[in-house]
């Protein structure tokens, strides 16, 4: 066992020095092309996504719906069976969330920043614009453990809160693994996202499978329906009244 650890350290150490990291902007530009390019994304006016949720091995499942429009408004509604419904959105003025644990809140600070990034309209081909700073970094060990391919990773520094690291498949340039922290009223919760099952719709490439691990729990989200440019009334995004 000790020898195995030693070998792995010896093998890993020179690899980082031997392979220079590509600039973050180049990695993100390749990703933008891989998911269809900016022009294809610019044509979209709205999206409505439905996903199934499964808590791996723990006997729970649920569903999620997400609506977003080109003016930046968005709403996500996640329901876990016999647990509860969690809503989060931006109505054009306020970032808000409502759930059985913390009730109805206007989000601020790092929580609001995280929500802004997660809800940003069609940010995929222009990820760098969401962040204060981006830089390429070696793959973190949590990411390499998940990926079956070589990775190129970018550290994304938010305006508030800790940075996340997004790793792309060096061959396909598609998202592979993301690590970061989810701010919460109780503190930062480390998470890992693994992306898969990429499909192309209307010239847009997107992931249909997302596995999120936080602590001992993994939730698998799988898209069951994805509709672009569906008419979504503005009232959909209104913050609920207290």
């Amino acid at each position: 066992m000790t020898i195995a650890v030693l070998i792995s350290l010896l093998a890993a150490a020179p690899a980082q020095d031997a392979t220079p990291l590509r600039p973050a902007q180049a990695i993100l530009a390749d990703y933008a092309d891989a998911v269809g390019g900016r022009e294809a994304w610019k044509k979209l006016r709205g999206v409505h996504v439905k996903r199934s949720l499964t808590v791996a091995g723990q006997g729970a499942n649920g569903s999620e719906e997400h609506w977003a429009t080109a003016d930046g408004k968005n709403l996500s509604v996640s329901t876990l069976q016999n647990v509860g419904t969690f809503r989060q959105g931006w109505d054009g003025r306020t970032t808000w969330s409502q759930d059985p644990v913390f009730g109805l809140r206007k989000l601020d600070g790092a929580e609001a920043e995280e929500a802004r990034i997660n809800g940003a309209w069609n940010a995929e081909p222009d990820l760098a614009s969401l962040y204060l700073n981006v830089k390429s970094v070696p793959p973190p060990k949590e990411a390499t453990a998940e990926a079956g391919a070589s990775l190129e990773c970018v550290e994304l520094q938010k305006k508030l809160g800790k940075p996340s690291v997004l790793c792309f498949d060096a061959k396909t340039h598609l998202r592979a693994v993301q690590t970061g922290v989810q701010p919460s009223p109780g503190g930062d919760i480390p998470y890992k996202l693994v992306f898969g099952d990429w499909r192309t719709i209307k010239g847009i490439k997107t992931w249909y499978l997302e596995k999120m691990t936080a602590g001992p729990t993994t939730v698998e989200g799988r898209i069951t329906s994805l509709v672009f440019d569906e008419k979504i009334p503005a009232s959909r995004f209104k913050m609920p009244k207290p």
Partner: protein
Amino acid sequence: MQPPAFVPLGADGGSKAPWHAGSAANQIRQAIFVGAWTAVHDKHFDKTLGGLDWDGLRRKYEPLALAAPDEPTFYRLLNEMLGLLGQSHLQVHGPGEETAPPPDEIPAPHTKTAAADAIREAGDDYGDPGLLIRIIEGKPTITRVRPGSSAAGAGLRPGFLVTHIGGRALASLPPSGRALRPVEERFRLRQLAARRLAGLVGSRVSLRCLDENDRPIEVMLERDPPVARAIQVLNMSPVVPEVTSRQIGEVGIVAFNVFLLQPVLAEVQKAIDGFRARGDKAIIIDLRGNPGGIGAMVIPLAARLSATPLTLGTIVYRDFSNVLATTASLGIKPFTGQVIILTDEGTASTSEIFAAGLQEAKRALVVGDTTAGAALGSIIEELPGGAVVQIPVADFKTPKGMTIEGRGVQPDRRVFETRAGFLAGRDVVLDAGLDLAKASRP
């Protein structure tokens, strides 16, 4: 749940036992053993596993467990290994873990699974005869009889002593996976009695008791339908959620039997809002017999009881921590009068976290008995063959750094329950809570 997948003796190769190496039964056992061992290794909140040689324990226990003569022995050995960690929320359950039901237990006509699987059977076809059995003054005692139940119809009353359920003596409990503290022994008997009483609706179970004059009586009780629909969340045992609220004078009393965000939380919040609107000066939250549930419920519940943000403690996971802190939720008016929490040996896990957090924050007084001391965050993962393993994935520490696991919440006012009290129809713990509430300032 389907019946156990284990093949019967002699069915897979002449005179060979079904658990011989390489048999299907043995492979399932091995998958269960390795699955449980690995889950603890990878997910337990303490990476050091208390300094135990976990690999060495596998080498010791795996061959013993795989060669066990029957399933109860297999599970006992597996739980014995897990029990060496000396913690709650750490156990394996699976098909065939209990011995067959005794001859005087009469099954319902449509029996489909072994009674031993009742704990894991979700659905509305499981019920009980309507009585609660706890250790009082060292003896298994009926402490509550549900009005209108089979038990009530049979003339059973609080204060009767119980000697046998289904022909099996309550005094002789099957061995536990680890040495238990006295409060845990009492909690365990309470749970075991409840499991033996539970079964398919319409089936019957015998009960031997001593009445108020210590005369032996024996009754055959039918299992009643559950009072509400059973809910199963995250592989926890199915539970029929019950929330009751009432008022005595200017004191609101709310009791609930499990922490669930749905549907329990809304009902408890509604009760508290009602007490506040009515101008009650105190609320009693009755957590006796509440074994916990969804830990996150402590946050919105505490938020309903404090005008200022409260910190109840910290959940310490393997790689990070999360503070149980309330936040200001829009449109919520909290109750600001006195809060009293009632506890007993069956107050466990999330109930203890809630009680300890409010007690340390000086937002509530705790009245009753020391709680179970089983306050760890856990998940219940599925294993092959229909088995499940419960793993403690988080420790809990109060804001002052106190651990409740293995210690319990110590009441501010300890109340001793007696058989005589139950026979007289008194609830001495509630009475003590009401005394404190009446003495509180408006």
